[in-house]
C-alpha cells in the first residue's frame, strides 16, 4: 500500500484541522503539567497580591496630598480633581508595574519550552510523531501565554478600581490590556525562539533577558546616543530644532507603548509623559507653563501663561505602533522557532512533499554523490576515532 495517495488526498481543511488538533494536544499536555499542583496557584496569587499592594500604596501616598489640594500645582483641591488624580496615579503606576512583571514573567515561561525537551531528551519522541513542528511550537507558545493571559486578565478587577475614582476611562484599560498582551506575546515568542535556538535552557533564559534589556534600556540609550551624535555632526538644523534617531527604534520598546497609554490619562491629555513622548517624535511642545485647571477643565499653557488653543494631545501615537510591531515580531520569531525545532538533519524536509518526490527519483546528481561517498576508504573505516553514534549530545 502506498500511503501517499491516502494521506495527501486529504483536503486543506482537514490538514488545518489536524494542525489545530496538534496545537490543542500540546496545550493540554503543557497545561496539565503546568497548572497541576500549587505552583500556578501561588504564582497567580503572589502576582495579584503585589498589584493589590501597589495599588494600596499608591492610594495611601497620593490620597492625602490630593485631598489636601497641594499635590500638583494648578490642581484644584478636593472634589472630583482629587479623585481623578488618585485614579490616574493608580492607573499609571499599575500599568507600568504590570508591564514590568509581564516582561519578566512571559519569557520565563517560554525560555525553557524547547530546550528543556532537549535537555530531558524528550524532544526526539515528540518530533518523531506526525505532528507538524509548527503545531508543536504554537501549542507551546499558546500554553505558556494562556497562563500569562490569565494573570493579565485576572488583574483587570484591580485596575478597574481606577474607574471608581475616575482619571482613567475604560478605553484606557482596554489599551493597557492590548499593550500588555502584545508585550506578553512578543516576549513569549522571543523566549521560545531562544529556547529553540539554543541547547541549554540557562543560555536561552540569559539571552532572552539580555534581549529584553536591549528592547527597553538598549533602544532608549541608542536613541539618545544616536541623536546626540547626529547633532554633533553639525546636523542640528538651526536653532531649536534637533535631529533625532529614527522613531521606529522605539516601536520595539514596550515601555514607550505603555507610557503612551498612561499619557492619555494625564489631565487634559498633556503632562510630563506626553512631553517626553512628543520629544521622541521631535515635536516641540511648549508647555512651559504646564497645565492650568479649573474644576475639571484643564488647558495647556506656555511659559507666558497663554493658553495654547490648538494643542493636540500627542498620546495615542505610540501604543498601536508598538503593539503591531510586537505582533509582527512574534509571528517572525514563531516562524523561526518552527524551523529550529525540526531536527537539524531534516530541516529541508518540510517543504511540500510532492515536489520532494520529484527530486528524489534517482537523478544522476544524487547517485554521483552516493557513489563518491558510499565507498569510504579503508583509512576512514580503520580510523579508531570513536565514531559519534549520536550527532553530538
Amino acid at each position, binding site marked *: 500500500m502506498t500511503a501517499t495517495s491516502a494521506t495527501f488526498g486529504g483536503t486543506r481543511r482537514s490538514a488545518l484541522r489536524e494542525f489545530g488538533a496538534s496545537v490543542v494536544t500540546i496545550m493540554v499536555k503543557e497545561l496539565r503539567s503546568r497548572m497541576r499542583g500549587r505552583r500556578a496557584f501561588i504564582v497567580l496569587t503572589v502576582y495579584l497580591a503585589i498589584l493589590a499592594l501597589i495599588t494600596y500604596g499608591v492610594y495611601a501616598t497620593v490620597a492625602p496630598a490630593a485631598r489636601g489640594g497641594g499635590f500638583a500645582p494648578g490642581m484644584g483641591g478636593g472634589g472630583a480633581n482629587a479623585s481623578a488624580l488618585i485614579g490616574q496615579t493608580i492607573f499609571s503606576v499599575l500599568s507600568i508595574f504590570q508591564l514590568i512583571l509581564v516582561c519578566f514573567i512571559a519569557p520565563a515561561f517560554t525560555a525553557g519550552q524547547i530546550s528543556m525537551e532537549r535537555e530531558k531528551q524528550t524532544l526526539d519522541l515528540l518530533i518523531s510523531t*506526525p505532528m507538524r513542528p509548527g503545531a508543536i511550537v504554537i501549542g507551546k507558545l499558546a500554553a505558556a501565554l494562556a497562563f500569562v493571559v490569565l494573570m493579565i486578565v485576572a488583574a483587570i478587577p484591580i485596575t478597574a478600581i481606577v474607574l471608581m475614582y475616575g482619571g482613567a476611562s475604560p478605553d484606557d484599560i482596554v489599551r493597557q490590556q492590548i499593550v500588555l498582551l502584545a508585550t506578553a506575546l512578543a516576549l513569549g515568542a522571543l523566549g521560545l525562539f531562544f529556547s529553540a535556538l539554543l541547547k541549554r535552557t540557562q543560555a536561552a533564559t540569559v539571552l532572552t533577558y539580555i534581549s529584553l534589556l536591549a528592547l527597553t534600556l538598549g533602544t532608549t540609550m541608542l536613541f539618545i546616543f544616536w541623536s546626540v551624535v547626529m547633532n554633533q555632526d553639525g546636523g542640528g538644523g538651526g536653532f531649536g530644532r534637533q535631529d533625532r534617531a529614527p522613531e521606529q527604534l522605539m516601536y520595539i520598546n514596550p515601555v514607550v507603548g505603555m507610557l503612551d497609554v498612561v499619557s492619555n490619562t494625564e489631565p487634559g491629555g498633556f503632562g510630563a509623559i506626553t512631553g517626553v513622548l512628543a520629544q521622541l517624535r521631535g515635536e516641540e511642545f511648549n508647555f512651559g507653563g504646564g497645565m492650568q485647571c479649573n474644576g475639571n477643565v484643564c488647558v495647556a499653557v506656555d511659559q507666558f501663561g497663554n493658553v495654547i488653543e490648538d494643542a493636540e494631545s500627542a498620546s495615542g501615537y505610540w501604543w498601536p505602533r508598538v503593539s503591531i510591531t510586537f505582533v509582527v515580531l512574534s509571528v517572525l520569531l514563531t516562524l523561526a522557532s518552527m524551523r529550529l525545532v525540526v531536527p537539524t538533519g531534516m530541516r529541508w524536509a518540510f517543504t511540500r512533499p510532492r515536489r520532494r518526490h520529484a527530486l528524489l527519483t534517482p537523478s544522476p546528481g544524487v547517485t554521483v554523490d552516493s557513489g563518491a561517498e558510499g565507498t569510504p576508504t579503508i583509512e576512514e573505516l580503520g580510523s579508531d576515532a570513536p565514531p559519534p553514534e549520536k550527532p553530538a549530545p
Partner: protein
Amino acid sequence: MMTATPVVETRGLVKRYGDHVAVAGMDLVVGPGEIYGLVGPNGAGKTTTMKILATLLAPTAGEAYVTGIPVDADPIEVRRRIGYMPDFYGVYDDLKVWEYLDFFARCYGVPANRRGPMIGELLSIVGLEEKRTDYVEALSRGMRQRLCLAHTLVHDPALLILDEPASGLDPRARVEMREILRELRGMGKTILVSSHILPELAEMCTGVAIIDHGRLLRSGSIHEIERSLRATALLRVEILGDETLRTAAADFLRTDSRVGDVLDAAPDRGGVIRLEAAFDGDGDAQADLLRKMIEAGHRVVGFSQATSDLEEIFLKVTGQTDEEAAA
C-alpha cells in the same frame, strides 16, 4: 501489509558527519513480521541508521524506505507507520502514566473514543495496568522502558524501531522486555531492534545484521551467519584413555588436512582426554573424521562441534574488519 513490500529497505545508505562516516553504504531489507536485530559495537552506526529510518536524520546519500515510502521525502507519512524508541530518552515525569500515553495517542491523532480502551490494552501488554494513575516520575527504570515501548504502539504502527530497548535493565527486566517483544511479534508487528550484545537478540530475532564502522558485515538468520563462519568451527573431542594417549590422539587429528590447530582443552577428568581442534569442514566431513578416529582404534566418547558462542561469532565478524582495515 499484504504485499511483499519490505517494511524496511535501505539502499546504499550513507550518513556523514563532516569527515566522519557514520553509515557507509548500508543495504538492509526487513520483511513484514520479522524481528530484525542490528548488532554492532558502540559507534557502529546502529543508532544513526535507526534515526534515519525514524526520520530524525536525513541521509547524506542513498535511499531508505519504510513500507515503501521514502523517509526523506515524506517523513510525516513515515512517522505514522513507525513507533520509535530512542536509546536515550526522557519521559515527561510530571504526567500520570495514562496521561503520558493519552498525550502520545493525541499526537498521533488517535480519535478520542479509541484512546481510553487502547491505553488499557497497551498497559496490560507492557504490564503496567496497576500504575495507570501513578506519576511517571515514580516508575522504575524498567517500567519507564516499558512505558516508552507502550508509547510506540499507540497508533498501531507497522514497524517498531527500538534502539537498545534492553540497555540498562537488570536481567529480570530484560527477560520481561524480550517476552513483550515476542508478544508484539505475535501481533504481527515488524520490529527493528538494536543491541551491542548479540546473544540478547539471537534468541528472538528472525534475522540479524552485524554492522561495524557503518558497514553491514553479515546478515541473515543467526544460523546462516554461524554457517558462514563454519570455516573455523571448533571440534571438541573426548577420548577414553590416559595421558599417554593424548599426544597420539592429537597427532592423529593433525594428519587430517582439514584440521588446523589442536589444543589441549580442559584438564583430564576420570580417564577422559579432551582435545579441541579447529576444523574446516561441514557435517559430512565431521562424520568422516569421527569414523576414521574410531577405525584407528581411538575410544571416542564425545565428539561435538563446540556450540559457537555468539559473543565469539560477533568478535570474529567484527574482528575481521579490523584485520581488513589494518591490511
